[in-house]
Structure formats: structure tokens, C-alpha cells
């Protein structure tokens, strides 16, 4: 499980507000470093960044002119400063391949990725919570073994291959669902009706298996831990019915489970490239793919920056939400 082992620094904080403030201040250097990494990615690229627009027989002068026009002739720190300044104003430059503003292109694609991630989250988290609770309640029984096997298969399966399998079964063999795309009229107009939703089914199921596996494992471990604690024994001894005990389990497991799910949502938003490629889903991952292969560097830079910032802010939100609902973090 690639989740972070140390999270929620500042558990000693006396209240949520102070914690929130500290956590927000801590995000600033992270955001700047993330921007720096995104910026530098382009400069470790072998070859001329203009290779995508420049004709092979272009003259030296033309190359120099273009280089100046894109600002590639200035020293690196200056370029970074200018880029950051413009990025703060929402200007990430224009795509070299299409000439359109990067920000608009990325935001339109991100919308589709969010649709996919939310659908996958609904499936994956529901399945994960259910399987995890069942496995935790019936530990070391065959029910637990079945649920755990599902979870392990979910985190071990190459999801792009699972996508292919689903296409083979449901599109090629049964002809029930469309194999690629995001709607009957191409990709530009998404709507929440069946004509569009059936395009979402296979990519969403494919995306949901990893979060399903990880949430199952987390909820199973949490449930098992909580049920083996003394206070549960005491509650049962006092005559509390199982539903009441279950309420306590949910209350105690919620903060950690929510944190894991928040992180998973972030992974789904940022890691959708393989699945979007399999299903030709017109999201941010698909955009990233074309940016890489057309060597469209401003687009590559912008897409990675925006996806990483999404992830950073989602992490921030998760940490603050966790501090707000978990009384142990408040009390310190």
C-alpha cells in the first residue's frame, strides 16, 4: 500500500484552528517546490523544446526567434520566476500543438477525470467499506478469506489489463457496453443519462478496484482492532445490542478510513492516465498522454502541475477534516 506512514504532524495542537493554520502554512513551500519540479521536468528533457513546432529544415534565425518568443533563451531561474508569476495569474502558456491556452485545455479534461473518479469512488468505497466491515467482523472465517482475496486481487491487478478484459467480455463478446469514448456524440458534451452513463460503467469499475482493495484492507484492520479493544467488551457486558456496538466501531474507524479514502481519491485523479488511455476517456490522463507523445511541453508542464496541486490540496483537506472529526487529534 503506497500510502504515507507518517501523517498528521502536529497532533499536539490544542485546537483544530491552530492545526489548520499550521497545516496551511506548511503547504506553501510544498506548492512552490511542486511548481519547481514541474518546471524542471521540461528542462531535463533531451532535445529542443521547440521540436514540436519547428519544421525540420527551419533556419537558425527562425529557431532563435521562436526560442525568444517562448522565452527559452533566458537563464533558468528567470524563466522559472516568470513562469511561476504567470501561473499565479492563471496563465500557463499556450499548447505548442494546438495553440490554445493550457489552463483551459487542462480544466476541461480534468472535469472528465473528476466524473470518472467520483463514479469509481462511489463503487470502490462502498464495496471496500462493506467488504472490510464483513471481513473485520468475521475474522479468520471463510467470509474473511473471500473478502481479503478480493482486496489482494484488487491491489495486485494491472488495472489497464482489467480494463482490456472488461472490454473483451462486455463489449466484444456480449456487446452490452461501448468499448471506448465518453458519449455517443464524441467527447465534448457529458450528460448524466444512460446514453452517456453506459460509457462510464467499464472505466469506473476498472478505476475502482485499487481503492476497493485498499479500503477493504484498511476497514478490515480498523474493525478488527476496535472490536478487540476492552471498551467494546465493556459495552457488550453492559448489555448494549450489536447495532449499538456497530455504531461505536463506525465512530472510531471513520477518521482513519476517511483519510485513506481521501488519499485514494487523489490517486484516482492523478493516476488515471493508463485507464483513460485504454478507454480513450477524454480526461487529464489522456491529455497528458498526447502531451508526452506530441512533445507539447507547456501542456505537459501545466497538466502535471494542476494534477499535483489537486493532490496537494486534497491532502490538506483530508488532514484538516481528520483533525476536525477525530477528538484525539483535538485533545492532543
Amino acid at each position, binding site marked *: *500500500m*503506497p500510502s*504515507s*506512514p*507518517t501523517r498528521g504532524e502536529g497532533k499536539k495542537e490544542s485546537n483544530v484552528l491552530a492545526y489548520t493554520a499550521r497545516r496551511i502554512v506548511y503547504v506553501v*513551500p*510544498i506548492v512552490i*517546490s*511542486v511548481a519547481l*519540479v*514541474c518546471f524542471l*521536468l*521540461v528542462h*531535463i*528533457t*533531451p*532535445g529542443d523544446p521547440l521540436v514540436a513546432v519547428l519544421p525540420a529544415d527551419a533556419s537558425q534565425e527562425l529557431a532563435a526567434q521562436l526560442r525568444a518568443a517562448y522565452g527559452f533563451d533566458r537563464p533558468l531561474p528567470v524563466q522559472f520566476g516568470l513562469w511561476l508569476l504567470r501561473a499565479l495569474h492563471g496563465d500557463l502558456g499556450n499548447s505548442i500543438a494546438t495553440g490554445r491556452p493550457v489552463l483551459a485545455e487542462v480544466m476541461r479534461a480534468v472535469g472528465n477525470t473528476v466524473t470518472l473518479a467520483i463514479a469509481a469512488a462511489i463503487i470502490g468505497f462502498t464495496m471496500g467499506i462493506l467488504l472490510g466491515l464483513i471481513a473485520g467482523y468475521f475474522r479468520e472465517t471463510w467470509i474473511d478469506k473471500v473478502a481479503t482475496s478480493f482486496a*489482494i*486481487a484488487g*491491489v*495486485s*491487478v*494491472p*488495472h*489497464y*489489463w*482489467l480494463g*482490456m*478484459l472488461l*472490454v*473483451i467480455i462486455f463489449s*466484444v*463478446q456480449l456487446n452490452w457496453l461501448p468499448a471506448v469514448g465518453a458519449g455517443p456524440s464524441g467527447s465534448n458534451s457529458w450528460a448524466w443519462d444512460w446514453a452517456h452513463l453506459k460509457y462510464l460503467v467499464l472505466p469506473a469499475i476498472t478505476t475502482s478496484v485499487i481503492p476497493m482493495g485498499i479500503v477493504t484492507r484498511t476497514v478490515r484492520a480498523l474493525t478488527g482492532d476496535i472490536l478487540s479493544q476492552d471498551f467494546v467488551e465493556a459495552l457488550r457486558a453492559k448489555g448494549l445490542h450489536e447495532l449499538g456496538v456497530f455504531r461505536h466501531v463506525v465512530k472510531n474507524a471513520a477518521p482513519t478510513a476517511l483519510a485513506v479514502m481521501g488519499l485514494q481519491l*487523489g*490517486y484516482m*485523479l*492523478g*493516476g488515471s*492516465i*493508463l485507464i483513460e*488511455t*485504454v478507454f480513450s476517456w477524454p480526461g487529464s490522463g489522456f491529455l*497528458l*498522454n498526447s*502531451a*508526452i*507523445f506530441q512533445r507539447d511541453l507547456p501542456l*505537459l508542464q501545466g497538466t*502535471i502541475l494542476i*494534477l*499535483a496541486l489537486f*493532490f*496537494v490540496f486534497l*491532502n490538506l483537506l483530508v488532514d484538516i477534516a481528520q483533525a476536525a472529526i477525530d477528538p484525539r487529534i483535538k485533545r492532543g
Partner: protein
Amino acid sequence: MSELPLTATADAALQAAPATKARGYWATVGRRIMRDKVSMACALVLLLIFLSAILAPWLGLEDPYKGSMIRRLRHIGTTGYPLGTDELGRDMLARLIYGGRLSLVIGILPVILAFCIGTSLGIIAGYVGGKLNTAIMRTVDVFYAFPSVLLAIAISGALGAGILNSIVALTIVFVPQITRVAESVTTGVRNMDFVEAARASGAGPFTIMRVHILGNVLGAIFVYATSLISVSMILAAGLSFLGLGTKPPEPEWGLMLNTLRTAIYVNPWVAALPGAMIFAVSICFNLLSDGLRSAMDIRN
């Protein structure tokens, strides 16, 4: 006077020692994992895949590069081609077995490299502490700001396609994760009495880290690293699947899956085979890592 009974008990304890302390820690772990049926089954499957990949040239297989236009996309079970042929008429069985060579290397090598680099960085950060710790761990935090799939694809996308670049990209993805684990276990060990004792007896920081810390943290970091192999296999093949890793005509599972994608309408089950190999290796490593983790948890 009071020393006498003490010595007597110590002597008694010493005599009793061979009976109670029969094995070392790792021997116990080894014995526990040998008894775990699931782990052993996974180890056996992995051993088979590894051995066939290493011994591929001596198994009497078809040439994995030799295609033929007249026998493209044969079905599974065709005589002479037990697993069919691919879109260029090359024998799938040979390509799957030969494919293991590259696939396993690009999947496992990044974890090994990251294990070496991350363990060193984490132990130094955890033991030395102070400004060096801050510098290393804050840099690690920056990499944690990227989802790992995005980071891997961004780096190898920027570096360009190629086996070496994809190994570099994946190593960069895993180093921060291993560093974080190594740092946290080292911080837990650094103030223990035996480290204090080594320091008091004049051992230098390098000796302490190498001899006293490393031995006590390596197990935990190793288990964590083994759990990353499954992710690494999926990501490495994924990079090739996108066209960022291996280049044709090299047999490699991710790339084979990519080139066979067009064949899913003609011969879907042959097209799905390379993914099954990735899945098998990935799930075996995951289960083996789980088995190792619970075998090392002696208290239970």
C-alpha cells in the same frame, strides 16, 4: 556475599540457555514462512517464472522475434503454438517466457535500487537528525505531493521512452517512500540503550549506523520494499504499455499487451495473456510480502 547467589542464577540461566534459545530471529521467521502454504505456493510460482525466464534460450522454444504473415493471431491450443501467435505471427509461449526477462528486470530493479538509496538516506536522516534530517525529509515530502503513477509517467515522459529511463523514473518514485519508512524506524532505534552503549564505547557514527542501526532496521525496510515490487511490476509494464518503456520488437509483457490491443476483436484471449503474467507475478509478490510480514511479527 550477595554476589554468590546472583552468579549461581546466572550460571543456571546460562546452562538453560541452549534449550530455550534454540534459534535466531531469522531462523524462526524462515521456519514460520515455510509453514505458510500460501507463501510457499507463491514462492513456487515465482521460482518457475524466474527460472523459465533465465533458462529461456535452452527450453527449445520458437524464436520470439520470428514472425510470419501467414500464421498471425492463431488461437490458443493451435498445434505447434500452444498459446497461439501474436499480431505478427510470433509464438506467444516463447514471447511470454522471453518477455519475463525484461519485464522482471524493469519491474524489480527499481525497487532494489530504491531500497539501497532510500535505506541509506533514511538511516542518515534518522540517525544524524537536525538540519540534515530536515533537508532530506522535506525533499521527500515534495515527491509525496505527486501521485506515484503521475510522477512515474511525468519523469519518463520528460526523459523520453526507453528501458533505462523507465527504470530511473520508477527508482525516483520509490526512493522517497522507502526513505520515509527507513527514517521512521531509525528514529525509533537511535536512542535505544545498545546504540548509546556503542557510542559510549567510542564507535563512530558511521560504524554505529552500519553495524548497530542497519541490522535492526533492515528487516522492516525490507518487508516494506517487497510490498512495493507488485506496484513496481504494474507500473513498469504500464509505462511500456503507454509506449514509454520497452521498444518493439523486444518481448516485454506491457508492450505486448499494448501491441495486442488491436487484436481484441479478432483473438481476445491471446491478447489478454501478457496481462495475466503481470497479474500472476504481482499478486504472488503481494501475498509473499504479506506472508513475510506476518512471519516477522513473532509476537503473534
